[in-house]
């Protein structure tokens, strides 16, 4: 998949409490959650985010609570992809499970808010449009690649259970 979009830039250790504060966790409705996405780190995000935008960040993105509502809120906001230097392990799994593409790369160091990048998720190539610099992302483990190809964890469960 090729994704081209403008970026929202965030620092290290963006935790799931700022991605979607617990005061909004009395629902799991994606549209409701999207209204408050990133609210405690960036009030402008939910108002200005456009379909196809990309989030780029530093280390340990999605740390803290295991709430799946965090990647759900990001995906429902229209974000096409999250690229961080590293992810918290629970967020990493959750994003895969709900079909939010995520990649590990240092590209954030090269970017300012609303710069544009082009991402080839299969080749793990990220191109910065303003200067043509190309970054490689880490490769998705085979097991997870297979999970995606078999249609995610839900279809995998169907296969195992023969239903």
């Amino acid at each position, binding site marked *: 998949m090729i994704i081209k979009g403008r970026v929202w830039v965030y620092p*290290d250790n963006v935790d799931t*409490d700022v991605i979607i504060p617990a005061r909004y966790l009395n629902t799991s409705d994606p549209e409701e959650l999207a209204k408050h996405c990133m609210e405690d780190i960036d009030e402008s995000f939910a108002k200005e985010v456009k379909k196809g935008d990309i989030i780029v960040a530093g280390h340990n993105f999605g740390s*803290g609570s295991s709430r799946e*509502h965090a990647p759900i809120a990001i995906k429902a906001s229209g974000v096409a992809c999250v690229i961080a230097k590293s992810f918290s392990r*629970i967020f990493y799994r959750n994003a895969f499970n709900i079909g939010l593409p995520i990649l590990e790369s240092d590209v954030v160091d090269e970017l300012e808010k609303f710069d544009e990048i082009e991402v080839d998720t299969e080749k793990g190539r990220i191109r910065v449009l303003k200067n043509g610099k190309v970054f490689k992302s880490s490769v998705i483990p085979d097991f997870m690649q297979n999970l995606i190809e078999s249609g995610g*964890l839900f279809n995998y469960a169907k296969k195992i259970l023969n239903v």
Partner: protein
Amino acid sequence: MGMTISQKILAKKSHRGGVKPGEIVMADVDLAFANDITAPIAIDFVKRLGVDVFDKNKIALIPDHFTPNKDISSANQCKIMRDFVKERDLPNYWESGEVGIEHALLPEQGFVRPGMLIVGADSHTCTHGALGAFATGMGSTDVGFAFATGKSWFRVPESMKFVYKGKRNKWVVGKDLILYTIGKIGVAGALYKSMEFTGDAIRELPMEDRLTMCNMAIEAGAKNGIVEPDDVTIEYLKERGIEEDQYEILKSEGDAEYSDVIEIDVSNIEPQVAFPHLPSNVRGVSEIKEDIKIDQAFIGSCTNGRISDLREAAKVLKGNKVAKYVRLIIIPATVEVYRQALKEGLFDIFLDAGAVISTPTCGPCLGGYMGILADGEVCVSTSNRNFVGRMGSKKSFIYLASPAVAAASAVAGKIVHPDEVVK
């Protein structure tokens, strides 16, 4: 090359002779659980599949976060959970009046045993490693998968070994050891890895302090925290009617490989305080030279809401009064803890001091309810996260500490060493 205790459990549960860090295994889980926030999505996963849960006795549903129901939406989420429990006739469910915070309730009620593989839809599931189980937090979909199939996939983690030596100072508890450790390695210091807590000082550490330490492994990014079972573990289980022949004790092999070995002399550690807004932003309490005035102190949560925590708080609060304009909120983590505290007369000490005591709930720890912070307010909390907005306003400030430090600070009206209050 030998395996660590974490790797051994994953090997056993995936029916392999051995596993290596980085391998991905599909393993059988012994216990899978979710709470009122995370269960609805997991339940939906099972319902969409149109299957039964894999084993009624191996799943638990625990409405602890926003109960007693805090508002209509939360009540509806709890209802989804309760209806599912009724419909499937599931035994491991606790209603208000019997429910406690999941990570305090499950070990207390004898659901956690050495050698088990446990997944929970809550990041603090790592708590249960204190009993020598491999326990890790996941999202709702992963736990829904476990509810339906009895399995989960794992990337075998590298292990980090933390060796604690020496004798603990007065007032220094498990909370201080883990805050100090996170301060040393950082909030991503154990990312994707196992934190194995060992050494003489751990052998002398009571089970409740071990639970506190493993609870906060996630705050260093770890996949799990774990302590090898020993006499303390065996005794804790015996008190719950679980005999040694009912579980298997696994230990790390002598030649097991660790990505890091970190030695910590606990005799150099004093009560610790984590400053806003990261659990790694740690200082010894005597290093704080400025006055940090507080508006609220919270003693409770899956980190520090157990009976030993309330006893520590009571030691400090006895005969003292909470400072003017400070709210002290005490929340026993389970009904058993609540009853025991009442029986020991701790409630009188708390009430005389001017504290408010709540029914068991996660409540204010995650900014749910029962003690939300206003703009600019400062709270010293025995919970696990001091992130921006975690307990309410994003303009509030949270300092993490032990129950003794929180209690002393409530009395002094500012963050202080317990010795300043208990003369």
